């Protein structure tokens, strides 16, 4: 690794950050990561002694909401993250240079930090038509992605796009937009889903990796457990209303004014893993449910295809019709029930006929032909 890279602390001091606010940052970060106060000195020590880690941030099919969220991170101040903690060597949205200059910077970073940089991916590559639906620097994005991934230490999939595909991958997915882990299969990948992910979650993940030099603990789907270990519903402050059966039935009813549970309005909190009900948004000001709107499940795989957003039951598209499970089930039950009724009627008729035959003596024993 190149000896010339400064440590985080050196960069921070050079940026005019005092030691006091540096230590404050360390303890706040420890708290955000759920590590407890004992870890603050560890973070401080790591930042004082470790060279900062280079990051390459690429953009595929996306709407830039992840970047927008990221630069609104209140803590740790995104200024610290972008300018000091990580050296964001390539990000075609945030960087000053553009065009050929930018592409040259990418190539330079890949060569200089071979095997040591983190590749952050926002958006995903469309694979149809040889990837022509997303062109970066004159080439399909999927080529840039493969190229940059080859020498990366690890990959962060930012947001629902990179993690699962999001809206561009919703059925029928005309461009065959494909999440990163289905294109790059030989690198450790951290999924940080959400549309967008919460800013503090994004910076928290990066801080953890830089401080401890390893990936945060991931769940089965590759999401950091510390932020995606529980559902919105598990920590929702309206949960007591759910258990009581006190539901909002209309957007303008009294229950809505009383702040009761939004389950019947289609809230996807019970099926969504994210930190909104704990970390919240915009410096912890609020989150969708607190503002009276149900969760739409933006951090879940295929959330666009599990709509409608305002119905509890998702539409089933697998059988060529778009109905929910109950409508389908009732139709099938009515069909079977009708068939049974007809069958029962015919059976009764046949039986009456048969009994008559026996009575008439045309057959001597029951059921004989």
């Amino acid at each position, binding site marked *: 690794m190149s000896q010339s890279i400064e440590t985080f602390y050196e960069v921070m001091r050079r940026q005019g950050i005092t030691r006091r606010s540096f230590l404050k940052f360390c303890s706040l970060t420890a708290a955000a990561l759920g590590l407890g106060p004992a870890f603050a000195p560890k973070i401080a020590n790591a930042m004082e002694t470790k060279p900062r880690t280079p990051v390459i941030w690429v953009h595929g099919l996306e709407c830039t909401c992840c970047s927008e969220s990221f630069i609104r991170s209140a803590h740790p101040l995104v200024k610290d993250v972008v300018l000091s903690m990580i050296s964001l060597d390539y990000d075609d949205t945030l960087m000053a240079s553009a065009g050929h200059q930018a592409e040259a910077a990418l190539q330079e970073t890949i060569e200089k930090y071979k095997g040591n940089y983190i590749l952050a991916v926002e958006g995903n590559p469309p694979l149809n038509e040889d990837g022509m639906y997303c062109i970066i620097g004159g080439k399909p994005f999927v080529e840039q992605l493969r190229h940059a991934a080859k020498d990366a230490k690890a990959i962060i999939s930012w947001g629902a796009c990179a993690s699962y595909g999001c809206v561009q991958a919703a059925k029928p997915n005309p461009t065959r937009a494909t999440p990163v882990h289905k294109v790059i299969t030989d690198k450790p990948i951290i999924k940080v889903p959400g549309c967008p992910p919460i800013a503090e979650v994004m910076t928290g993940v990066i801080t953890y990796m830089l401080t401890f030099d390893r990936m945060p603990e991931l*769940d*089965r*789907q590759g999401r950091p*457990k510390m932020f995606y*270990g*529980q*559902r919105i519903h*598990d920590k929702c402050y309206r949960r*007591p*209303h*759910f*258990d*009581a*059966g*006190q*539901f909002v*039935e209309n957007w303008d009813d*009294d*229950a809505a004014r*009383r702040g*009761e549970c939004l*389950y*019947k309005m289609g809230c*996807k909190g*019970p*099926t*969504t*893993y994210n930190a909104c009900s704990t970390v919240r948004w915009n410096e912890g000001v609020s989150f969708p449910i607190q503002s009276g709107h149900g969760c739409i*499940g933006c951090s*879940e*795989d*295929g*959330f666009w295809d*599990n709509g409608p957003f305002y119905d*509890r*039951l*998702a539409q089933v598209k697998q059988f060529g019709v778009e109905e929910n*499970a*109950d409508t*389908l*089930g009732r139709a099938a*039950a009515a069909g*079977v*029930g009708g068939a*049974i009724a007809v*069958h*029962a009627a015919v*059976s009764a008729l*046949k*039986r009456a006929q*048969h009994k008559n035959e*026996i*009575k008439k*003596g045309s057959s*001597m*024993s*029951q*059921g*004989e*032909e």
Partner: protein
Amino acid sequence: MTTGMSTGAKPSTAIAGGGPSPAVAGADDVAPEDVASLQKITSVYVYEAPVRLWHWINALAIVVLAVTGYFIGSPPPAAAPGNTFDTFWFGYIRYAHFAAGYVLAVGFLGRIYWAIVGNHHARQLFYVALWSKKWWKEVLFELRWYFFLEKRPKKYVGHNPLAQFAMFFLFTLGVTFQIVTGFALYGEGLGEGSWADTLFGWVIPLFGGSMDVHTWHHLGMWWIMMFILTHVYVAIREDIMSRQSIVSTMISGTRTFKDDLPD
């Protein structure tokens, strides 16, 4: 392996028939057709007590699961406002679902155990003899019987092959599916690292996400509903129309045949 009368089960003679029977000789309302239809009634012990007990506990659990499950998907009208510590209305609905879920799952495990140690009729629920020509022939025969193309049904000691087919595909597979997806969802509530999450948590990403599992679990309910509808209808119909007892067999365990014709 569907058993006709030839499989070695020992029929016990209930009423000795043939000729002017003493059983009806004394009755003063005896008509010629009564005497004509008089036959030997035989019975076989088919369903052992654990199978019968399981059947009714299982049926009850499924009724509770279907009703509460339906309400989990579409909750009843909202409860009155008030302190949330006074009310646990939706909580109880879910609690009943989970409790019945445990009963269903433990019962099903017990039923599997009985398939191993019980008599051979106890095994019919867990396989279909797709490889056997004889089995297919009998299925065809049963289909013809249900389409009114056969005048006289066959006799069976155990389940008839068509019933076995429906029981395996609609019931056994359906219930297994519900137990696996049900406990996967239950594991989400218990939390990561809980026993249900450890055993069944892998199911969630397999379907996509939690919402997909909910939807499939919900469709699973309707799958089992199809079974119940046909099952109860056919049980009652066959009780009347077939040549053997049906409903009482699941209560007493003995199959009684209404005639002694050889096939």
